[in-house]
């Protein structure tokens, strides 16, 4: 039995997830694909019922992309709530790993402290063997202005998500310089959707 304070507020371990898996997975994947193909644009995505500690869009992403062939890293806040790991395992069958560098997917509920370099950037010969990181942000506006350029962007696209680390632009530069290695990000904001930031794009702080 868990004594999580969130226990009574939301889906239990066995409930939630997709109620129409084929359709919902396709729609969510379509949003994720467009998010990476058109970096900086907000792609609406349907939220699923999930344990209270888990951002609901993380639940959607998990049901869409995770299964017994994947390895998931949860940040300390998510890992500290047994409902989250139980729900992930029950809903998707994903393995949960304790080290960032082993993760195919990472879910970070408090993005202010994230260290992109801790995750797996892949191999020069197999750059696809890298971590896809999901960062929950409090808002897609009000943060530092970040100017994105590169593949998928016609000219440039400026975003200003709130809740990223203060040195995000520097961390991103260190990630992008590794190309074709590097991590890819999905920023998720509850009630809004996702923004994709593939390793291929450049991000500069606007002052």
């Amino acid at each position: 039995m868990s004594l999580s304070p969130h226990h009574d507020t939301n889906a239990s371990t066995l409930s939630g997830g997709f109620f129409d898996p084929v359709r919902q997975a396709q729609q969510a994947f379509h949003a994720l694909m467009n998010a990476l193909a058109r970096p900086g644009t907000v792609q609406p995505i349907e939220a699923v019922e999930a344990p209270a500690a888990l951002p609901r869009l993380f639940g959607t992403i998990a049901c869409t992309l995770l299964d017994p062939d994947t390895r998931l890293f949860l940040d300390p806040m998510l890992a500290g709530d047994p409902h989250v790991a139980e729900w992930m395992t029950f809903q998707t069958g994903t393995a949960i790993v304790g080290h960032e560098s082993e993760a195919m997917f990472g879910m970070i509920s408090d993005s202010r402290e994230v260290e992109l370099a801790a995750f797996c950037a892949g191999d020069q010969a197999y750059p696809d063997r890298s971590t896809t990181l999901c960062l929950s942000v409090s808002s897609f506006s009000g943060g530092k202005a970040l100017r994105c350029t590169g593949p998928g962007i016609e000219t440039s696209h400026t975003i200003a998500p709130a809740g990223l680390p203060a040195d995000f632009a520097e961390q991103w530069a260190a990630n992008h310089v590794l190309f074709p290695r590097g991590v890819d990000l999905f920023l998720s904001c509850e009630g809004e959707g996702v923004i994709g930031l593939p390793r291929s794009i450049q991000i500069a702080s606007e002052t």
Partner: protein
Amino acid sequence: MSTILDLMAEQPSSDLAHYNFAYLDEQTKRMIRRAILKAIAVPGYQVPFGSREMPMPYGWGTGGVQVTASILGAEDVLKVIDQGADDTTNAVSIRKFFEHVAGVKTTTSTEEATVIQTRHRIPERPLEPGQTIVFQVPIPEPLRFLEPRETETRAMHALEEYGLMHVKLYEDIARHGHIATTYAYPVKVAGRYVMDPSPTPKFDNPKMHRNAALQLYGAGREARIYAIPPYTEVVSLDFEDHPFEVNRFDRPCALCGAENVYLDEVVTDDAGGRMFVCSDTDNCESRRADGHVGEMGVPAAEAAE
């Protein structure tokens, strides 16, 4: 292995319950979807995936079919072309396959389509943001004919060692006075990976550059997926003294009068008569519907009578 036609004979198209939507099971789709996301993040890089057997021969574009099956939703409108035409056996069969297993709306109109599956051609009509074009790829590795070993070609991509490719193109120039490659002409994507644009004619290479649509490439037998995101720089390999040139046609389409389009030669009668017409049948038909007439064409109003 049963064929598409066997499957359709067994199951009337009204009964979709027999298959998962779009034929592939959800776990296979998830695996392919994860590969597609990596392919988009690393433009031009060939992502390995666990290719599945499909109810059709490899030569029919099973890689493209698996990509299409993994991205297609109930609201999508699908167009399938082969050599630019919507009415070849290959195009018709794949279109029927998706009508049958996904129940999606299909079209021959480039404008109406949200997903276009193709081999050999990119439509003449510029694609739009929000459209996705899926290429059926027989041989995804542009370095394969120079180096048969996968470990070696993988190392060459990793180290960005593309000297051999330039040597091959330069040998063409030495032998023919120009670069003789007219199909599957290699490109460099986003300044990094050399990529094979599948068997498209080099005429279509400029259409890949900064295209507003998402381009996805699927190779079934070789189990590779690669991608070009919208607005990505795509440069055909060439030399300063021998710049890349597209095939030129010295005449317009005989039916619709279109210039600067890719033409196919067709035989018109037993006496050896021939004419050159748009390879893109939708482009030709919509131009004729708009009143354009080529030297051997008939005005749309007369043709309708």
